[in-house]
């Protein structure tokens, strides 16, 4: 797929002496939502860190928006248009909610209708109520909304979500899924990691499954829904 927004080929990476990724292939097209699946410790977060440039790539190629991103500094990759919502949310505890949103905001792509503070507050009204609270004074769900809002404020072409709803209350989860669906309708490309397959089958167009650092399966939601053997083999705990 040469017109893919993000394309990862033969990605290998690891930590110090231990290699974790042994060949990850995945594509995200424009306006497409792709999920990255796999059991605990299979290398999903490691893939995200490599795409973001936070972990050096040992082999393989990462291209984004037609440019080679392998070995680029994280800030250049972010500036090219990838918005990260990291595992564990990592909102800045030393900044207020509003400052978290403003501090790294940008519109480098020159988007005509960019994300602004008002728009994020309209999108997540709970953040507006908490705007003066510090990042460590709000609930986990609010932190996740803040992490998503913070990424949106960089006006990314691709949203990279690691553990979109982990550890959140059911109602809050539903709200996050709801908001992600709205982003998809808006045409935003998304690469998402989460443990709730049912919700991902509804939201995502395609899925990539990782097994011990390799991408072993990829296909549409329909294909995954109709394939209990694959689900059982790679995803059941």
């Amino acid at each position, binding site marked *: 797929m040469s017109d893919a927004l993000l394309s990862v080929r033969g990605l290998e990476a690891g930590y110090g002496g231990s290699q974790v990724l042994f060949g990850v292939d995945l594509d995200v097209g424009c306006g497409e939502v792709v999920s990255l699946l796999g059991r605990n410790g299979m290398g999903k977060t490691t893939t995200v860190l490599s795409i*973001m*440039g*936070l972990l050096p790539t040992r082999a393989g190629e990462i291209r984004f928006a037609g440019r080679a991103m392998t070995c680029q*500094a*994280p*800030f250049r990759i*972010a*500036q090219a248009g990838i*918005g*990260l919502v*990291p595992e564990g949310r*990592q909102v*800045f*505890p*030393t*900044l207020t909610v509003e*400052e*978290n949103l*403003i*501090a*790294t905001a*940008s519109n*480098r792509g020159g988007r005509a209708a960019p994300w602004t503070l008002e728009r994020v507050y309209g999108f997540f009204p709970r953040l507006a109520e908490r705007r003066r609270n*510090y990042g*460590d004074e709000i609930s986990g769900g609010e932190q996740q909304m803040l992490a998503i809002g*913070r*990424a949106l404020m*960089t006006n990314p072409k691709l949203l990279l979500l690691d553990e979109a709803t982990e550890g959140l209350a059911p109602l809050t989860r539903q709200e996050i899924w709801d908001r992600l669906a709205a982003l998809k309708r808006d045409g935003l490309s998304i690469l998402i990691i989460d443990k709730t397959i049912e919700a991902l089958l509804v939201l995502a167009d395609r899925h990539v499954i990782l097994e011990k650092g390799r991408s072993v399966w990829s296909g549409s939601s329909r294909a995954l829904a109709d394939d209990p053997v694959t689900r059982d083999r790679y995803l059941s705990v």
Partner: protein
Amino acid sequence: MPTSLVLVQLFNGLQFGVLLFLVAAGLTLVFGVMDFINLAHGVQYMLGAYLAVAFYRLTGSFFAAAALALPASLLFGLALEVVVLRHLYVRDHLSQVLATFGVILFLNEGVKIVWGAAPLNLALPELLSGSVPLMEGLRYPVYRFVIIGVGLSVAGGLYLFVNHTRIGMLVRAGASNTAMISALGVDIKRLFTIVFGFGAMLAGLAGVMVAPILSVEPGMGDQVLILAFVVIVIGGIGSIRGAFVAALLVGVIDTLGRSFMTDALRLVLPASPARMIGPALASMGIYLLMAAVLALRPAGLFPAKGRA
């Protein structure tokens, strides 16, 4: 002891504290944001003073010298960061301490080669050399009020800067998570350089301001550096507010201790032991303060990791 004398020493302490703040501000940001221990920070203070003297010789005007010494301090700080210090950020603290100690030795020696080992002086302009009446029969030098005024204004400006600008937000966010900042599109190296240059310029400003009242000599930054470290440890590493409060505390306690400790001891001890113990106790005062603060609040008065 007369209240007028206490008042004078209080002002002296304030003036000393304000200078300490200017040096400590850069030190605490560089330590807090970059996790970098920069012993060479005191050198920036010394260089500010030497640059003021050098530009005074060139221009013959104190104000022109001060105005030129500041950007020169900034440029020197930036050059030092790019050429030497930048390569030390990824190293451990011990390497940083050793390498920046080397920078101190090198630059103290360099200053001797350029300007000689003998202490230099800088004359105050007519405009600033008078004194103003504080109360009946008590006058206080204008220039020391100028130092206090400049220091307090810079502190206020810095407070606004750190709390109300984007760069200030990034500096505060950087105290807790630099990787996340760069993953959101911020060139962290450039941010570091800006913070560093700014801190160097503030230390340079302190050096410029003391040039007319202290002798300008090699190694003059070393004593100040130690006190600046005491200040940032008391205030909480990475916190501008902490550095401000701690610098004033240290300045006032140190000055009052040196002036009145012996007299105070005389109230409870005979004269001769008081004369012996007084000065010793006075010079320990700020370290006792540091120990007390660390015992009660190990992260300092205003820990920056949790909140600015």
